[in-house]
């Protein structure tokens, strides 16, 4: 991936830069246009920091009208646009292009409406994920999806990436918690999908937009559902001598009809790194550590803790602690939540992967990863959203050692190939972006990708919005238009017909 091929910059656009900047200043007066190299440095990368690129110009609009005019202007002049929220993407979704306007939505930072009786919040897209919860928590409500970047990531970015978090097994992903959006298409048209009502009208374009990684439209308003905070939450910290036993315990908990609020697993290297960092009291003699959080009314939590304990013992757990105070619950989580920085302490750099697998394949995938780890000579630590099978292998490497980044990326790609091979997918919640773009063929056939590209053609036929992301190669919409027609006889003349 280090040899990442991005779309060739358009020489015409580059040569007209001064004119484009001046026109942007007309559309967005004041401080909303940044064109100096120093000013643009802050925007040259996102959460996937291995890649950097200065954009043509950075534009920070403040109104829907400005967004519409910018997109229309660019559409008419064939200028590319890369939308950006808070820039926390771990897959390079907001990586700028040399010849593209970087459209930064951070000034759309107001909550427009809080409606408790219908339990919805209407927010501008630049409001942070946690900002929504903060706005409603005094009334005991919260917004459920909680990606680990929630303090910084924007709700508009969450829509673009269909963000998850540790609670999404029980409470769903962004797609299940967003009721409506307003968005601007590349031609400047403003479209509203959904609203405060539950069913989308017509085609589920809201479902298609969610997780579309900024390739279909720019979100300018989001309506989300808020939930009442559960009365209680308690956690169990359970250690197992083998990952098989840990995996079976997870399967048995779900088999017993229990859907925990959160269910996380860590492997030995991740446990050790986390324990050394935050001293959460994690057992160091286990191969798999499970955190199971149960939330709801106190009586329900107490009832289910007894059942989960019994399941853990039946699966041969060697330690099983139940949090008896809020502080202890947070201590259990402290190690898991600090897992990434903890791994950052034991290795100069780490590379976070994001495959999802059928849970039962965990032992096979972990064994495969150990093999790969030896072959590449790089360590790997695993944290795992165990309930939904979402793996986050952290590959340890040193970017200052020539060739190690390439090796880490090749290792990561092999892990994702393994995930797909066992029936899983390339990305559970981080998105494809530029990072996994060239692996799409591992999971989808040409025909599958063509159909996805056709969706793009309905929204942005000129491929101007966030090009170079998600799809390994761009094909002109007209070329995709060919029909595969086999005129004449049916290949199966014996299909029953009446």
């Amino acid at each position, binding site marked *: 991936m280090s040899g990442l091929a991005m779309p060739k910059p358009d020489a015409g656009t580059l040569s007209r830069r001064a004119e484009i900047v001046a026109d942007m200043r007309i559309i967005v007066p004041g401080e909303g246009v940044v064109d100096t190299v120093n000013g643009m440095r802050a925007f040259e990368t996102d959460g996937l920091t291995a890649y950097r690129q200065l954009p043509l110009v950075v534009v920070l609009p403040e109104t829907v009208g400005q967004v519409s005019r910018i997109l229309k202007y660019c559409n008419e002049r064939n200028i590319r646009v890369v939308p950006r929220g808070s820039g926390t993407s771990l897959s390079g979704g907001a990586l700028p292009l040399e010849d593209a306007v970087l459209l930064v939505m951070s000034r759309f930072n107001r909550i427009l409406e809080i409606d408790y009786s219908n339990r919805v919040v209407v927010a501008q897209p630049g409001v942070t994920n946690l900002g929504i919860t903060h706005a409603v928590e005094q009334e005991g409500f919260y917004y459920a999806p909680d990606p680990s970047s929630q303090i910084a990531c924007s709700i508009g970015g969450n829509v673009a990436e269909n963000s998850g978090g540790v609670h999404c097994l029980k409470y769903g992903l962004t797609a299940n918690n967003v009721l409506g959006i307003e968005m601007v298409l590349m031609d400047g048209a403003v479209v509203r999908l959904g609203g405060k009502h539950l069913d989308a009208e017509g085609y589920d374009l809201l479902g298609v937009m969610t997780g579309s990684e900024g390739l279909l439209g720019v979100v300018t308003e989001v309506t989300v559902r808020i939930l009442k905070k559960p009365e209680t939450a308690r956690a169990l910290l359970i250690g197992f001598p083998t990952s098989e036993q840990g995996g079976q315990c997870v399967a048995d908990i779900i088999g017993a*009809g229990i859907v925990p609020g959160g269910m996380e697993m860590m492997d030995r290297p991740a446990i050790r790194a986390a324990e050394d960092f935050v001293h959460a009291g994690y057992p160091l003699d286990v191969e798999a550590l499970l955190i199971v959080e149960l939330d709801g009314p106190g009586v329900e939590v107490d009832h289910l803790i007894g059942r989960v304990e019994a399941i853990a013992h039946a699966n041969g757990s060697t330690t099983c602690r139940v949090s008896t105070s809020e502080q202890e619950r947070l201590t259990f989580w402290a190690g898991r939540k600090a897992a990434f920085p903890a791994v950052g302490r034991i290795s100069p750099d780490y590379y976070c992967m994001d495959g999802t697998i059928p849970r039962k394949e965990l032992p096979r995938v972990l064994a495969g990863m150990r093999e790969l780890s030896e072959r590449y000579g790089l360590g790997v630590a695993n944290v795992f959203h165990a309930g939904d099978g979402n793996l986050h292998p952290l590959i340890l490497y040193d970017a200052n050692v020539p060739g190690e980044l390439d090796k880490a990326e090749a290792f990561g790609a092999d892990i994702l190939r393994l995930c797909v091979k066992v029936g899983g997918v390339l990305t559970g919640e981080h998105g494809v972006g530029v990072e996994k773009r060239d692996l799409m063929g591992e999971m989808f056939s040409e025909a599958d990708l063509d159909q996805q590209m056709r969706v793009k*053609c309905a929204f942005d036929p000129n491929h101007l919005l966030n090009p170079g992301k998600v799809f390994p190669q761009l094909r002109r919409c007209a070329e995709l238009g060919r029909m595969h027609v086999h005129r004449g006889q049916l290949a199966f003349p014996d299909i029953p017909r009446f």
Partner: protein
Amino acid sequence: MTIFAPTTAAEVLDTVRWAVSEEAPVEVVGHGTKRGIGRPSQTEHAIDLSRLTGVTLYEPEELVLSARAGTPLAEIEELLAGRGQQLAFEPMDYGRLFGTGPGRGTIGGALAANLSGPRRLKAGAARDHILGVAAVSGRGDAFRAGGRVVKNVTGYDLSKAMAGSWGTLAVVTDVTFKVLPAAETETTVLVRGLNDGDAAAAMALAMGSSAEVSSAAHLPEGVAARVAGGALGGDPATLLRVEGFGPSVAFRVDMLQGLLKNAGAIEIVAGETSRAIWRDIRDCAPFADGTMRPVWRVSMTPGSAAPFVFALRMEAGADAFYDWQGGLVWLRMEADPEAEAVRRLLKRFGGGHATLVRAEPQWLAAVPVFEPQPTALAALSRRFKEQFDPKGILNPGRMAADASSDRFAAS
């Protein structure tokens, strides 16, 4: 008229390719339970998926089930129930409303119509549970989207695009759904005697509490008697369903009783009666009257539902009841669908969309069945359709009049 009844995905592909090459529009149909919904379709041929059956994968511990599109919903629900699981989106059964009988319908149809039920408030609709599909587009291309794991953001979510598309984009041949544990027990708290406005306030209070109410409905006077075999009597009933583990349900029912003690007389219903009530609300049983009097399904802001119905009744005769805390209003009109009034007032009360689910054929031809869309959205939807089905082969004109359906209608 030819009805093709493919038994494999390969045969579906072949059939669609034939239809594309002949430019022969086809109706895509499963058991036909929802055939009456949508703009009247005129096709010479049909693809009947009811022989494309079979559960191909069910792993209860992975919370996943795959089946061919024509598999009966009833068969899947029975299989799941045997392992204490369910389709949490509680797909409604339109058979009762149309008088075609209960218990029919396919899993593919549940997706195509984006079915849901009273648990929609908490658990979502079919769109929220679909994980992956295999399908044949109206271009005659077989494609897959999504996967078989519950967390997946790889590529556009074309599986969701199939939800509520009424077979107009692609013929879905295989579906993979997330399945979830069924609740151990359920109890329904009823508040009696409330008018629509007070019921809305009571439901908002309950839904905003930590009692984790999974369904909230209000059956006004006269409607209440038409569920659960008349077990509730005729007084207005505001119903709150609580599901889960025994001790938790008992605790939360107590909590609701305390919360609503000043709202009105409270009754508690559990077991089979509770299940029967919600099944009847789900299936719109109060309006399953053996007639074809117009029935609207209105999706709107919950808190605006009661004033919307009040205003509508100033202009037209309508029976109504509320599910989803008011977010779903079922309306039965006297004779004329009164589409203009329904849609004008819906706009005035916060917007949403109204679907004319049941009506005599002449009304379906005269009235936009689905909510008309603003120009830019309608144009986007049309381009979306054309990317899947440029020749308008699949269920032409069922959702919206388009150039291709006009052409077919004319020819």
